[in-house]
């Protein structure tokens, strides 16, 4: 029994990262109908930003205690990472949108932006891995045969809070209504007096900011950073978002945790070689039954 509960906790933690990244994919897709393939790499950039922010705050010039440093690192990382996301939107996606390019070209641009982020990181910082400093004093709790760390709880709670927050923003606020409006008809919306560019920038701020938060938490949980750390997890989170129904906040959240549970579950029972085979076969079956994903709405055009 302990064994099962322990693995459920493992899956919740791992699924939290998929969910956090998938939320960013789905947010941008929901508004722009754009698959932002650079999102996994924005997550990577977020992890590196948090590394430098934390290192600076803990370093000799400032010398904050780890707890205060953590409290400052979270908003600072989110702000800086959303700046990266917005910059990407400004220099890469908006010019194409202005010229009325087909969505396919924007998607390809996104893929290239991701590679540019990876390789510019490789060029600037080199191939050596970085060690993330300890920000939280680690506490290990033993409940019967189950072991829990404060970090694990923090990750899971954060994923749930981010989901609730985004769900609230999109469904309950005026700006959320505008976001939904753009996705419905981006030609009619400006006629209603809604500043479309501001809304899109806001979407990128939200998506990239939470990718930065995910990067920070990931770096704290798995404190070895490398330039390609966002690639695979980004792709998998994208698939999770699609299975959940891309464009739907709830779908990304459920899809992320679903993938986490399947992966940990398969590794618990079978050798790890079967993990991706089983995981993606199951996801394929879900899409086979429900091509729009678990919570997705059918649409006439999709990429």
């Amino acid at each position: 029994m302990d064994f099962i509960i322990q693995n459920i906790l493992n899956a919740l933690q791992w699924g939290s990262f998929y969910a956090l990244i998938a939320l960013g994919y789905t947010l941008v897709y929901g508004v722009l109908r754009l698959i932002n393939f650079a999102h996994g790499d924005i997550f990577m950039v977020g992890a590196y930003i948090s590394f430098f922010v934390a290192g600076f705050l803990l370093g000799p010039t400032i010398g904050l205690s780890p707890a205060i440093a953590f409290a400052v690192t979270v908003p600072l990382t989110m702000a800086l990472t959303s700046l990266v996301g917005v910059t990407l939107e400004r220099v890469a996606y908006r010019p194409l949108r202005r010229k009325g390019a087909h969505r396919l070209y924007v998607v390809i641009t996104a893929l290239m932006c991701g590679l540019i982020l990876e390789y510019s990181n490789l060029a600037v910082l080199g191939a050596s891995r970085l060690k993330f400093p300890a920000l939280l004093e680690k506490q290990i709790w033993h409940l019967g045969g189950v072991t829990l760390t404060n970090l694990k709880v923090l990750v899971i709670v954060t994923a749930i809070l981010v989901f609730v927050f985004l769900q609230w923003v999109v469904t309950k606020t005026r700006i959320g209504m505008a976001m939904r409006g753009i996705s419905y008809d981006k030609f009619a919306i400006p006629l209603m007096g809604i500043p479309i560019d501001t809304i899109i920038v806001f979407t990128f701020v939200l998506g990239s900011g939470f990718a930065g938060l995910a990067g920070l938490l990931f770096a704290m949980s798995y404190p070895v950073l490398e330039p390609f750390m966002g690639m695979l997890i980004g792709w998998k989170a994208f698939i999770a978002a699609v299975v959940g129904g891309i464009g739907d906040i709830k779908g990304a959240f459920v899809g992320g945790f679903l993938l986490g549970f399947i992966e940990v579950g398969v590794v618990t029972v079978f050798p790890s070689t079967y993990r991706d085979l089983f995981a993606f076969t199951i996801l394929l079956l879900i899409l086979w039954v429900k091509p729009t994903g678990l919570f997705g709405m059918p649409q006439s055009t999709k990429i």
Partner: protein
Amino acid sequence: MKRLNLFAALLLTVLLAAPAFAADTIKIGFNIPLTGDIPEVGEGSKNAAEMYLADINGAGGLEVGGKKYMLEFIYMDNESKAESAVNAALKLIEQEDVVAIIGPNSSKQAVPGGGTANDNRVPMISPWSTNPDTTFERPWVFRAAFLDPFQGPVVANFAAKKFSAKTAAVLFDVSNDYSKGLAEIFKSSWEAKKLGPVVAFESHGTKDQDFSAQLTTIIAAKPDFIFVPDNYNQVALVIPQARDLGYKGPFMGSDAWGTPDLVKLCGEQCNGQYFSTHYAAAGAKGATKVFIDRYMEKYGAEPADYAALTWDSIGLLVEGIKNAGKVESSPRKMRAAIRDGLAAIKSFDGITGSSKFDEQGDPIKCAVVVKISDAGTFVFEESVCP
């Protein structure tokens, strides 16, 4: 058509630019991981090679058959990937016309890279690869490191003695020839000791960062120690995660742990663990100490085992070239002469110990077990000879 012309022109430029094989230099290729999963390894190898090159060329070149020849080293990045190791080997052979190749280091790249070298009849020496398949039935491939069938029992015997262990667990990288091979050899040598079973034998992928599911299974099986024949970057994630999941027992590692980066990435949580390796820098004597001191002075860091083994590999190759007796102007003839020269070496005194060579071209030499001290340095624990 225009584009085709342009392409042809480019091709021609490349062909002309490739320097022709000059008779007064000996070109040696290095197939090493300068980027990818284990960039530290490529860096260390290159550093050692640069030192050797400066020594030889600084003395006017290498004397073969009464004439001095300059050495030229060409470093090719294999990105720590198996398929890139094959490409790097082909590039060195076909474009650069090298007469011999040093590397790849890790078995993951050395097994496929060795196949390429052998098929193209180019002598190759892998400094660091310990998987038997690298040289097995490949007359053109040699190595400077001991083999996993030797390393596996070293680990098993040491753990049985040091931890009084009865049961063992293994966590390994299933897509890495080195890790998988060593895990299997360890398992059979542990079971041969009849102290107890291997209670968990779990695998993961190269790019994995979360090992919680595997570690939960391992910890539930209550092993006396966990053997982790992984690369240092994975070890730095595995050990803290196991501690987070409540494991309090010891870990045992293999020679892939032996880089200073392990301590940097893992921090205090790796202190007090043991691993088997090729040499220990602390307490070295003679030529080994001279090498370590010079390396420290030049690069400001202690040379890891792969740097020392690269040094020895170049030493072996130089010995092979000297045995060849003369430098042929055709790379093909020169390669064959070097191969015969290498095969003629019966024993070799290097900075990682002296070794004898068996009929497969594999050295028979001693291993050492190293402890990671509380200060994060690698301290010699004991030496194990075949």
